[in-house]
C-alpha cells in the first residue's frame, strides 16, 4: 500500500509540470477458472534502505494479466523461500500450485542490482529455469517484465510479451472544448508513459516500425492528413511527402523500408507502397471503391486491407512480388456488414479485425471467424507481438478506453486514463533482452 502511495506521489510530481499527462490504470475484469496456479514468492533483498521495487509483485501482475496464470495471493503463501534450496516441495503441493518462482535481489553498488531467480516445478521437485539479471534502478521494472517473459515462455512455450510497449493517442478537452491530442507510449502494464507529441490536430493510426524505434502516424491538419515518422528515442520527426487528398493508414513493411499507405491522389482511396529511401510511391490497388487500412503479412508476401468494392467494407488480401501487386485481390470475409482494420498475427495465420463493431479473429486458412468481444464500438485491434493477446479501443460509457483480451477470449481487461480519452492502441514488436 505504501509502495503504491509512493508511486502515486511520484507520478503526481512527475505529472505536475506537464498537467494533462495521462496516467494509465489497468483493471482485470475477472479471474480465469482454468488458469495455471503459480506462486511467486516475494524476492529476498540485500542492500541498504528498502528494496526499490517489489519485483515479485510485478511478475504476479504480469502473469495474471495474461489470463493463462492464476498467481496465489501473497497472504496465502505457505512459506517465503528465496532460493531453491530453501523450498520444501510437499508444502507447495498442499497449496496445489504447479510452479513456484523464488528469487532475491542484491544491490551490488549504488543503484545497481542483481536479481537471481529460479522457476521450480512443484510436482517433480525440479528446477525448470534459473537466471541472473543485472539492472540499474531505472531498468528494474523492465527486468521484472523480463522475468515474467522467461517464466511465461518456460511454462507455455510461447514467448512472453510483458517487456513490450504500447503506443496510443489520448485526447483531452479544455473548458472551451478545444481538444489536445497526444501521441504517447508506455510499458504494456501502463507504467512509464512518455508523451512523444502534443498537437491540436487529431492523431491517427500509430504504427510501430519493426525495429521498435520509430512510429508512423497520421496528423489530420486543417489542410488535410499528413504522415509522419517519429523516432521514439530522440523524438525527431520526419514528414513524409504529401499527396493531394488522403495520406493515411501507414503500416511498416517487415523489413522497415517501405510503408503501405492509403492515398487518393489518383481518384478514390487506394493502397500504395511508399519507399522511405526514395519517397516514391507504387500503386497496389486500382478500384473506384475505398481501399484502406493495409496490414502486412509477416513475411512481406502480401497485404490484408479493407475495401468496399463489394458494396460493404470487407477484408481482402493481395499478394506482392518485388514491391508490386501479384494477381487480383481475394476477398477474405463473407459474413457481417462491416469487416475492417486488419491486424495480422505474428505467425501470419490469423487476423484480428473489426467485425460489425466488435473484435473478431479470422483464420487465414479456413476463413472461419471467431468473435472475441461483446462490447459495441470496438475499434483498432492490434496483436501482441507473441500473438497471445489483442489490444483494442472501446467505449466505457461515453469515455474512450483501451481493452485487451487473450486470443482464447480470456482475461478481458480495461486500460483507462485518469483524464480524457485513450484510443488507437498499437502493440510494439518484441524487444531485445538487455541482459
Amino acid at each position: 500500500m505504501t509502495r503504491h502511495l509512493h508511486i502515486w506521489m511520484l507520478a503526481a510530481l512527475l505529472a505536475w509540470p506537464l498537467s494533462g499527462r495521462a496516467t494509465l490504470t489497468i483493471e482485470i475484469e475477472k479471474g480465469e477458472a482454468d488458469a495455471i496456479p503459480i506462486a511467486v514468492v516475494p524476492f529476498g533483498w540485500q542492500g541498504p534502505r528498502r528494496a526499490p521495487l517489489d519485483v515479485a509483485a510485478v511478475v504476479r501482475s504480469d502473469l495474471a494479466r495474461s489470463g493463462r496464470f492464476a498467481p496465489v495471493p501473497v497472504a496465502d503463501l505457505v512459506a517465503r523461500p528465496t532460493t531453491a534450496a530453501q523450498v520444501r516441495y510437499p508444502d507447495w503441493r498442499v497449496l496445489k500450485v504447479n510452479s513456484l518462482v523464488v528469487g532475491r535481489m542484491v544491490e551490488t553498488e549504488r543503484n545497481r542490482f542483481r536479481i537471481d531467480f529460479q522457476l521450480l516445478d512443484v510436482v517433480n521437485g525440479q528446477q525448470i529455469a534459473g537466471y541472473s539479471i543485472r539492472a540499474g534502478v531505472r531498468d528494474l521494472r523492465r527486468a521484472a517484465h523480463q522475468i515474467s517473459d522467461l517464466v511465461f515462455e518456460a511454462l507455455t512455450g510461447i514467448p512472453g510479451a510483458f517487456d513490450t510497449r504500447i503506443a496510443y493517442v489520448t485526447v483531452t478537452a479544455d473548458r472551451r472544448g478545444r481538444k489536445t491530442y497526444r501521441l504517447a507510449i508506455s510499458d504494456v502494464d501502463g507504467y512509464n508513459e512518455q508523451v512523444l507529441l502534443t498537437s491540436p490536430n487529431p492523431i491517427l493510426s500509430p504504427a510501430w516500425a519493426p525495429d521498435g524505434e520509430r512510429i508512423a502516424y497520421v496528423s489530420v491538419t486543417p489542410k488535410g492528413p499528413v504522415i509522419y515518422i517519429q523516432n521514439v528515442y530522440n523524438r525527431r520527426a520526419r514528414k513524409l511527402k504529401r499527396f493531394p487528398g488522403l495520406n493515411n493508414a501507414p503500416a511498416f513493411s517487415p523489413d522497415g523500408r517501405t510503408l503501405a499507405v492509403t492515398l487518393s491522389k489518383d481518384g478514390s482511396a487506394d493502397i500504395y507502397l511508399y519507399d522511405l529511401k526514395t519517397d516514391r510511391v507504387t500503386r497496389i490497388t486500382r478500384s473506384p471503391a475505398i481501399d484502406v487500412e493495409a496490414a502486412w503479412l509477416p513475411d512481406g508476401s502480401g497485404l490484408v486491407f479493407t475495401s468496399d468494392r463489394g458494396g460493404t467494407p470487407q477484408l481482402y488480401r493481395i499478394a506482392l512480388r518485388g514491391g508490386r501487386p501479384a494477381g487480383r485481390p481475394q476477398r477474405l470475409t463473407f459474413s457481417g456488414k462491416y469487416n475492417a482494420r486488419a491486424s495480422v498475427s505474428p505467425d501470419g495465420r490469423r487476423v484480428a479485425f473489426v467485425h460489425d463493431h466488435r473484435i473478431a479473429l479470422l483464420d487465414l486458412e479456413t476463413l472461419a471467424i471467431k468473435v472475441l468481444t461483446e462490447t459495441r464500438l470496438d475499434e483498432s485491434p492490434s496483436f501482441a507481438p507473441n500473438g497471445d493477446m489483442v489490444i483494442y479501443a472501446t467505449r466505457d460509457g461515453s469515455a474512450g478506453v483501451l481493452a485487451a483480451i487473450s486470443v482464447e477470449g480470456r482475461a478481458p481487461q480495461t486500460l483507462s486514463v485518469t483524464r480524457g480519452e485513450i484510443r488507437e492502441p498499437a502493440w510494439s514488436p518484441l524487444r531485445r533482452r538487455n541482459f
Partner: protein
Amino acid sequence: MDRLLKIVFVTGLMLGLAACAGPAKEGEGAAGGGGPAASGGDTRRAAEAGGPVDAKTLLSDPNSPLAKRVFYFDFDSAEVSAEDRAALRAHAEFLAAHPGISAVLEGHADERGTREYNMALGERRAKAVAKLLVLQGADRGQLQTISFGEERPVALGHDEEAWRLNRRVEILYSGY
C-alpha cells in the same frame, strides 16, 4: 488569398469599367440564386457588374437557397438526396456566376466504423458533392475537397441523432 483576389478584381473593375453603371442587377442576382437555369445568366451578369459585393449579399441572405451549406448522408453512403441535389444546384450556379470565388467541401463521418475508413468515406462524400457542383456548372478549380473523417463531430452524443448530424458535407466559401 481570396481577399487579395477580390481586391485585384475590384481594382480591375474600377479601372476598366469606370464608365459602367455599377451593380445595377444586385437585387435580381439575390433573388435568382436558387431559380431555374435562366436566372443563372442574371447572376452571371450581376457578378460581372457588381462582383464581390453581390456575392456577399447572396451568401449572407438567410432566405437564399445558398443558406443551406450542410448536406447529410446515410450510414456508409455518399449518395446525395434528391432534395439536396436541388439545393446544390443553387451553389453550382452561384459558383459559375462568381468564378473568383472558391469553396472548400469538408466531408465528415459518424463515429461508427473505423477511423481510417471514415477518412476515406468523408472524402468520398466531399467528392460526390464536388462532382454534382461541377456537373451543374461550377469549375473544378473553384472547389477543394478535404476529409476529417469522424474526427470533427458537430454532435457529441453516441446515438442515432448525433450520428445523423455528423454524417455530412459542409460547404465553406473562402472569405465568407
